[in-house]
């Protein structure tokens, strides 16, 4: 720490800090418009001049460019600094159009603030202004160069945080403006970072335009409802309506450090969409008609009772939600397991990759699971395995870019597709394997580590159960580097380099993505990946941690809360009589004693077989989101009674007998658990829209209707129950969550010692997936940056920004099939077909067709069956 004096206050700051930050962190004001703590220093606004006295010499220094030194004496305000700072402001204001009445920034404008702080008087100059046209070439952002003071923050945010570098300077001298290359329309990730950091009204959020003035907006911090990163965001409301989302209230707000992606920033319009269901609906004569809550609940409880009486509780299947809160899901499974008496509760993430919960729990038990995403910035190596981070979890991408900037982190990206990752580093290694060879690749990397003795093998053998078994499995001739290189289509050097960086890294993050998790052979790939991590961790020191990506905001929580057939909340085995006894005691109700029937497939399989007669769906749209479209449609067709709880009339809700309107995340309290098991609290920002209710309230009402008493007045009561009854959530307290998230892995690590590692040997021979003649393409699906399910579908701006889902195929394939960019094609599989326009790209390998599954109106699952899906693509006439 360095000690110095700023304005007679002794402060102590870390070495390398600049004077500006040192002052700001200690509550001392220095005017400044270009410096931003999360961006690299620029020194362009020339406002932060201070007087620095060192070794008896006083000099003027620009505080953002001057690192602190021991014994420095800084004066932030002297007649000199004031004179000069004012002169620069005077120049800036001579240039600025001063059109504050028609500027949305007015009221929260940095330029206004500094003008006010410096008490500027009328200046000496006539104006010298630019007269550039407003740039309004996209639905979300607009840029007015006349207001721009060229602080560079937007340029830096775009390059350093978003990794896009869509904008930069143009021209010279007075005519300098910010613009895109060749003045093409803005084509970026639309994270809105430029708007957030802009100190003037140059960058504007078009979705807000003239709807509200900053001082009218009420600000409520909460957690984002899209992906599983769990970004903090601030909901800005006016008259009970959400106007915009910001994240810059406090610098470094939440784990995302105020960074957002396009969905978090602009995907809020669904909340006040007029497509929201505002009253309960009951199907009469084939049509859904508005009804009262009383009637709707009455109807449901009667029908449920009938079915239970006739066929038993297990004839009801409950689908919990990856988007609802932990409290909603906890009560949902509680209701299903006790009131309805069924163990058929599940969630779509578990149906998609049934082994994932077991594997994640193993990673926790062995002490390898990562406890925080923020830790990425200290990583020396980040290894993405099947993770399309820029599309699925863009803010994690920003964290990795920060790591690269601060830490010179090495990045390894292993994927079938050449996924996008924009960053300024030479240390980026790509392992674009052939589909089906991913496990071989991981095993080969392990073989390199063992053969080259990159870790202490003796130590590894001592610390693990069956090291020799691993060794003998690695001796397989299939794993010879030449053979692997040929099979995976990755150069030998790259495999060696990747293995070396993971074994040698000081601190390594492995981020396993959906492309692996949802792959038909995902389980063994993840097992191999965990073996790799364990090999390094045990052979060296615990430095590799693994993150399993989750898709939705509460995909982790829904599983934690026991919306899984075989687990009671907190992953307690339901077949263990002891567990059952404890839970029954706590809940004061009997659990269903029907045996689990997992061998006969999931809920939809059983519904198809008519074993399940009623479906109760909360906040999900399985008709589109469940991978096997044909099966799920069949299941819904055969179900006798369907209840759907949702905010919108989704494809699933349209099939329901009763639809119950539920509130969205800004209308309720509760908690979400992100993909590294950080539990974060929501805050209610607006009252419930229409007659909608939070899901947990609906469940309580239904339970009461069915003769059970649920005494929960607020979601806090449910959290308290979870804290008492769910072992992994033990100790969670709502009031503490206000300041900081609850990391349940971390508290688990405190309490228990990691288990001895047992390698899970995957000996199955894998080889590249071959396509067949009739269907020459293999269909891959994945995430999309601009859409995610129902919410983005009803956010108009997002839809106008990304109105079309494309099928991506390799340029060479396209050329062979005489298909050009933008052609409309029919994609056909054995199960069904859809029509989409083509985007030719080099990001997907030959023989692969890629369609994002996040455009909810595109029923990609019509094509898919179980396992890999082969498709053919032909031009439509």
């Amino acid at each position, binding site marked *: 720490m360095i000690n110095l004096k700023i304005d007679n206050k002794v402060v102590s700051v870390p070495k390398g800090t600049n004077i500006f930050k040192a002052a700001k962190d200690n509550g001392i004001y220095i005017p400044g418009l270009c410096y931003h703590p999360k961006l690299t220093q620029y020194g362009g606004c020339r406002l932060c001049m201070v007087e620095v006295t060192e070794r008896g010499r006083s000099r003027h220094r620009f505080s953002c460019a001057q690192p602190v030194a021991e014994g420095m004496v800084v004066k932030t305000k002297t007649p000199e600094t004031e004179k000069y700072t004012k002169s620069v402001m005077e120049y*800036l204001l001579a*240039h600025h159009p001063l059109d504050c009445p028609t500027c949305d920034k007015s009221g929260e404008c940095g330029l206004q603030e500094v003008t006010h702080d410096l008490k500027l008087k009328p200046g000496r100059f006539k104006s010298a202004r630019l007269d550039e046209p407003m740039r309004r070439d996209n639905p979300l952002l607009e840029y007015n160069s006349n207001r721009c003071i060229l602080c560079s923050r937007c340029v830096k945010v775009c390059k350093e945080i978003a990794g896009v570098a869509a904008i930069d*300077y143009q021209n010279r*001298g007075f005519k*300098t403006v910010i613009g895109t290359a060749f003045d093409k329309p803005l084509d970026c990730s639309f994270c809105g970072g430029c708007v957030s950091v802009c100190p003037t009204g140059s960058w504007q959020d078009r979705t807000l335009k003239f709807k509200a003035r900053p001082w009218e907006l009420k600000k409520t911090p909460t957690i984002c409802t899209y992906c599983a990163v769990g970004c903090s965001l601030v909901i800005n409301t006016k008259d009970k309506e959400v106007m915009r989302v910001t994240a810059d209230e406090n610098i470094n707000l939440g784990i995302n450090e105020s960074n957002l992606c396009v969905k978090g920033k602009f995907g809020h319009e669904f909340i006040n969409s007029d497509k929201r269901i505002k009253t309960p609906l009951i199907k009469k004569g084939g049509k859904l008609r508005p009804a009262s809550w009383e009637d709707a609940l009455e109807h449901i409880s009667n029908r449920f009772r009938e079915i239970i009486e006739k066929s038993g509780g297990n004839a009801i299947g409950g689908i919990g939600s990856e988007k609802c809160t932990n409290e909603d899901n906890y009560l949902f499974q509680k209701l299903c397991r006790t009131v309805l008496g069924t163990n058929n509760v599940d969630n779509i993430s578990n149906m998609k990759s049934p082994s994932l919960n077991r594997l994640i729990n193993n990673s926790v038990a062995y002490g390898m699971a990562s406890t925080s995403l923020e830790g990425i910035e200290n990583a020396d190596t980040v290894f993405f395995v099947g993770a399309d981070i820029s599309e699925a979890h863009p803010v994690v991408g920003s964290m990795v870019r920060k790591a690269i900037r601060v830490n010179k982190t090495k990045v390894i990206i292993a994927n079938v597709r050449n996924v996008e990752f924009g960053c300024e580093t030479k240390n980026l290694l790509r392992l674009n394997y052939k589909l089906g060879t991913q496990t071989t690749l991981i095993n080969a990397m392990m073989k390199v580590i063992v053969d080259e003795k990159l870790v202490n093998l003796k130590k590894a053998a001592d610390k693990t159960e069956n090291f020799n078994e691993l060794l003998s499995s690695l001796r397989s001739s299939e794993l010879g580097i030449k053979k692997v290189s040929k099979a995976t289509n990755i150069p030998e050097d790259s495999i060696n380099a990747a293995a070396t960086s993971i074994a040698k890294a000081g601190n390594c993050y492995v981020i396993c993505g959906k492309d692996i998790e949802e792959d038909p052979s995902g389980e063994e790939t993840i097992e191999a990946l965990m073996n790799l991590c364990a090999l390094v961790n045990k052979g060296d020191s615990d430095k590799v941690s693994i993150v399993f990506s989750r898709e939705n905001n509460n995909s982790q929580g829904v599983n934690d809360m026991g919306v899984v057939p075989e687990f009671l909340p907190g992953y307690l085995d339901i077949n263990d009589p002891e567990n059952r006894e404890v839970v029954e005691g706590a809940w004061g109700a009997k659990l269903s004693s029907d045996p689990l029937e997992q061998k006969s497939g999931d809920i939809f399989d059983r519904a198809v077989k008519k074993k399940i007669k009623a479906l109760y769906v909360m906040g999900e749209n399985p008709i589109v989101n469940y991978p096997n479209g044909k099966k799920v449609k069949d299941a819904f067709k055969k179900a006798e009674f369907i209840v759907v709880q949702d905010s919108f009339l989704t494809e699933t809700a349209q099939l329901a007998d009763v639809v119950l309107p539920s509130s969205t995340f800004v209308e309720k309290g509760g908690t979400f658990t992100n993909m590294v098991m950080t539990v974060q609290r929501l805050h209610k920002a607006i009252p419930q829209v229409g007659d909608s209710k939070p899901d947990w309230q609906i469940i309580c009402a239904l339970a009461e209707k069915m003769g059970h008493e649920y005494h929960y007045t607020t979601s806090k009561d449910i959290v308290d129950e979870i804290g008492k009854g769910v072992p992994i959530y033990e100790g969670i307290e709502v009031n503490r969550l206000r300041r900081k998230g609850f990391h349940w892995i971390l508290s688990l690590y405190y309490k228990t010692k990691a288990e001895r590692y047992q390698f899970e040997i995957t000996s199955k021979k894998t080889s590249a997936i071959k396509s067949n003649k009739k269907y020459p393409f293999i269909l891959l699906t994945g995430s999309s940056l601009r859409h995610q399910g129902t919410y983005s579908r009803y956010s108009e701006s997002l839809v106008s920004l990304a109105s079309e889902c494309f099928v991506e195929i390799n340029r060479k394939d396209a050329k062979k099939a005489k298909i050009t960019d933008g052609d409309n094609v029919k994609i056909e599989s054995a199960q069904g077909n859809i029509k989409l326009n083509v985007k030719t790209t080099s990001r997907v390998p030959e023989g692969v067709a890629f369609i994002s599954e996040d455009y909810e109106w595109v029923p990609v699952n019509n094509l898919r069956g179980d396992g890999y899906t082969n498709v053919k693509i032909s031009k439509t006439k």
Partner: protein
Amino acid sequence: MAKKKSLTAKKKVTPKRPMIIVGMGTCGLGAGAKAVLESIEKELKKQKQTADVISTGCIGLCSHEVLVDVAMPDYSRVTYSKVKPDIIPQIIEEHVGKGNVVKKYAISQMPLNGRGVKQYRDLPLFDELDQNKNQVKVVTKNCGIINPEDIDEYIMSGGYKALEKILTKMTPKDVITEIGKSGLRGRGGGGFDTGWKWESTAKYVADQKYIICNADEGDPGAFMDRSLMEGDPHALLEGMVIGGYATGSTSGYIYIRAEYPLAIERLKIAIRQAKERGYLGKNILNTKYSLDIIIKEGAGAFVCGESTALQFSIEGKRGMPRTRPPQSVEAGLWDKPTCLNNVETFANVPIIINQGAAWYSKIGTEKSKGTKIFALTGNIKHAGLIEVPMGITVREIVFDIGGGVPKKKKFKAVQIGGPSGGCLPESYLDSPIDYESLKSAGAMMGSGSLVVVDETTCMVDMARFFLDFCTNESCGKCPPCRVGTVLMLDILNRITQGEGKEEDLDVLEKMSDEVRTMSLCGLGQSAPNPVKSTIRYFRDEYLAHIRDKECPTATCVALHKYTVISDKCTKCTLCIKNCPVDAISGSREEAAFIDKEKCIECNLCYDKCNFMAIK
């Protein structure tokens, strides 16, 4: 030492043949050297004469171009000035053929080493010419003498001896000490101690270090670096390799502006030749030291002459200066320790190594050692490239070397240091030229452009011109330079249009201080210098514009009154002939008179008048 043979030059020039040397620097080419060269070759064939025709760089007498030198065996080298293709037959016939100097065009002769012993009568020696008398040619000694495209000529004139010496006999530390002792200061304008800079770079340990030559000479009226690179490219390379060795650099860059195609061409040739001979590249002169030099062409931004902007430009980024610390010596190009020097600085290095620091530091003043090359231009008789010892007075340069102001006009001021410099009035004629004196007088050394201004130049207009240059060349990063200079220019424009107010001068002076203090880089910091120095020395002229709405030199068009000064009118009637509306009356006997009623103020009469008789 397998390559030892490379150290001796191959003699290509046959001593018993006449030599014709043509000045093919950019100045020569601009004056038509190419046509002259062609006609020489044609004429030699035609007259069946044999001679070695050699092209060379700029010798400094730019106003005398095209220069053609003829050296007959055993005789000294005779210089012909302002040669046109049509006099070539005569020169070849008389001089090459018969051995007689064509006196009409010859201006001087110079003895050649071991060759030209016999001198012609009645022809002054080159060094004794008025414009060369007070010069000390140290750095430019080869310019215009040797063929820059032939490494052997450089080697024969003692080139690459210094490199050999340091690589075999001196440690990097020794080299730095020697340069430090010589007192060499950066010739790019800042005047930073070169030895100290090298030492700082050497201090940092890194896997890569860079040595960069700044050849982005952008000042209007400056061409010292260009002439050096065109005339003696190997001196620069040798200096860079020595610098690279001293600082421990692993590769080198020459950042040169793309507007210097000839210099780029000659540097490329020089690099290729130096590599062939083992003076550059891997294991230089079979020692362990290796250095590769890469030429990076700039895209024409003045600000890229600023060291950090230059480094960004090499990295392929927008040339914008950054704040310091870190200094370039710590983290410069690609964030590695980087030593950046100017062309002239590097060219000084081999001389210091060869002659010793003690010899070098005898030249110049106490704090400014050695010589400085200036580009002498403007209203001066002998415009050209000059090399003078530090401490020489302005008077000596302007009147002795430059021959004073032509057309009997009066000297008014000299602008030193280009747009970032300032002007010095007549009262400073006897002040010495060194870093400190210039700074205290409100000018600066800059890269070394020296523009002489006579009485017909309006100082307000000149300040406006230089400020306009800086305004256009600002990178746009910081408001004082981007907006402040535009606001200053605005005021100057108003003044030149007769709309100035007295308080404007006060505002301009204050702004000069503000822009200097608040700007990030040297460009912004020095942009107000011309304004500040002209207000300081020529306040009356500003006041004339503001109070009397009159431009004393009648330069500012908006202030023209369109009256004839009858004393100056020579009754040539040129204005009468050119007036499109017949508003001017007069004749050969009677001075012209402009009828204000008819005059449309088209300014044609003013433009046409050769005697400044219209104001």
